[in-house]
């Protein structure tokens, strides 16, 4: 009989495997804020832009929603997380800005500094 601690360790390994199989180890991970406050600020549209891009072949990107980190007046927020780099946090993201983040940051690796949350 496994103890609960042994069971949870097994479950954690399985959970990690499932996340990885969904592409967690991609070069870039994108998190879009999807709490009530973020959605009210327009994050659903932003999310759709990213989802569309992933569907139409944006490579090596892991897209996820997230809760609210708590930076209300800069919502919607989007984070781009890359290995060995400080995560880039964009604020006041719109549909149009999302498209540019995809073209410039995700595809060409250019950080759009004007939109960064300081």
């Amino acid at each position, binding site marked *: *009989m*496994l*103890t*609960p*601690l042994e*069971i*949870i360790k097994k*479950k*954690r390994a399985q*959970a*990690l495997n*499932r*996340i990885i199989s969904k592409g967690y180890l991609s070069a870039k991970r994108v*998190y879009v*804020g999807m*709490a*009530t*406050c973020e*959605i009210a600020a327009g994050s659903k549209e932003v999310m759709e832009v990213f989802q569309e891009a992933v569907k139409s072949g944006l490579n090596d990107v892991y897209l*996820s*929603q*997230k*809760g*609210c*980190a*708590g*930076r*209300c*007046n800069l919502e919607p927020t989007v*984070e781009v*997380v890359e*290995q*060995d*780099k*400080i*995560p*880039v*946090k964009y604020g006041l993201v719109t549909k149009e800005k999302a498209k540019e983040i995809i073209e410039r940051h995700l595809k060409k690796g250019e*950080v759009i*500094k004007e939109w*960064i*949350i*300081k």
Partner: protein
Amino acid sequence: MPKRFNITLCDGPTCLHKKSKEIVSAIEQELKKHGLAEKTGINLSGCLGMCGKGPVMIINPGYVIYGSFAEKDIPEIIEQHLLRKKPVTRFIIDEDHLYNRFFRVFGDVNFFGKQMRIALRNCGIIDPENMDDYISLRGYEALAKVLTDMSPEEVVAEVKKSGLRGRGGAGFPTGIKWELTAKEKSDEKYVICNADEGDPGAFMDRSAIEGDPHTIVEGMVIAGYAIGAKKGIVYIRAEYPLAVKRLEKAIEDARKEGFLGVNILGAQFSFDIEIRLGAGAFVCGEETALMLSIEGHRGMPRPRPPFPSVSGLFGKPTLINNVETWANIPVIILDGANWFKSIGTEKSKGTKVFALAGKIKNTGLVEVPMGTTLRQIIYNIGGGIPDGKKFKAVQTGGPSGGCLSEEYLDTKIDYESLAQAGSIMGSGGMIVIDEDSCMVNIAKFFLEFTQNESCGKCTPCREGTKRMLEILTRITEGKGVEADIDKLQRLGNMIKKASLCGLGQSAPNPVLSTIKNFRAEYVEHVRGKSCRAGVCQQLLSYVITDKCVGCGACKKVCPASAIISGGAKTRHAIETNKCVKCGACFKICKFNAVKISRTKEPR
């Protein structure tokens, strides 16, 4: 540009006397030497929670924590870690603690870097609808730990030792609540999560559930084990549909993985949770009213004792805690009660989440250790007041709390100090007020809210708040007399003493605290019939100055025919007794000829 590296140095009170200033300048010197100054951000954090190991710094990317190093070790750390990518292992604190995980993503942003996150540790960094995200960050390990290694009594003792107090507002010691409920002998017991968040301007609980629902589930299951309950209920308001949806999904997923249901994680312990929706009556956040509402009755408070721990839901022993309290439980179990009680002040341990709103540059969710000052929250994290306006007051605790003036800015936040200052901790609303707001009007706003939400069961609250509101309305309309101020105080103190539940007992607070701290404004309203902030409409008067060219625009828009003129191109005037103070003439005038005077009669 985002920097290549970021160094977060702990600047908490204990680390301070370990020379953070000298360390920063030593770091800066080394960075310059290696040409890394431009590429590296340095920020000073609040407490990083590793007080015994100071000085502590986190180097990102990678979230490498260094501790117990000396000034002389800095050249080595900077050179080896940043330049050669070889972290100096002998100073690294290798702990996978639950708190402050968000530093990996947000630590370099000042707004976040000065916070300490325990309850909101996963909010904004995981997908709340994907249980795997939660599990991968040691989710449900606290549950597994108590089921494997701890007896129910040990769990209660651990929570008691942590010093955690109820985050819903009253600050009752959580461990004692657990102990009392555990002690009761009954075939049935209940665990309740109070998610009936209703303070205007407060949204901590919604964000916590929407951002990390599993931590609430885990906290409740642990409590079920500790007190011997099989059933948990989350009482959440229907106005939070997304929070409800995420919580439903979390419960369903947890059931599938065996974190809820029969024989949880293979142990001899069964527990399940259901959700009950509240219709949004503010009084249902009061625990006895909440339980009546779950039972299907009208939500009205009843006298205590008996306390819920003895006779709660359906007359059974019931443990009821607030959302934020639940979110602290897994951390207390895994990071330990000893660690938890090292954070905060003597009587208030851990952190508190505040919803920072109002006239403040950075609005948002702020979680800081108890003992942080209001000034630190408003200026260092919140960024101060926008548009160069002057700070006037900060309102804490929502409609049950009070307004504190500038002299209280250095108050260290905990349950006792805020109460002493005339406000309360409350559930965490924090509204910043600038010089453009009228304190009488703000008191009236909050009283209007509680008066509306008073359930009507007890007379002091039902009738008393009504009378207070009438007096306040009179004052804001310029019909108040000087004795009204004392009458408000007398009535307020009576309501506080005689009301049945927390709603009535705290409803007068906004009025009493504004009279205490801003009495001059009340006096101006009743004596001078003037409102210095220019908010109370009835205390304003409009006059037309000699800038008037006689265009007649104001005359056309005035709904009360209060504008008199001797014809086109002559200076117009306003008949004060006809004027309804709508401001239409002020808005339409292109020549800035209409002036607002902040007194009832034009001066």
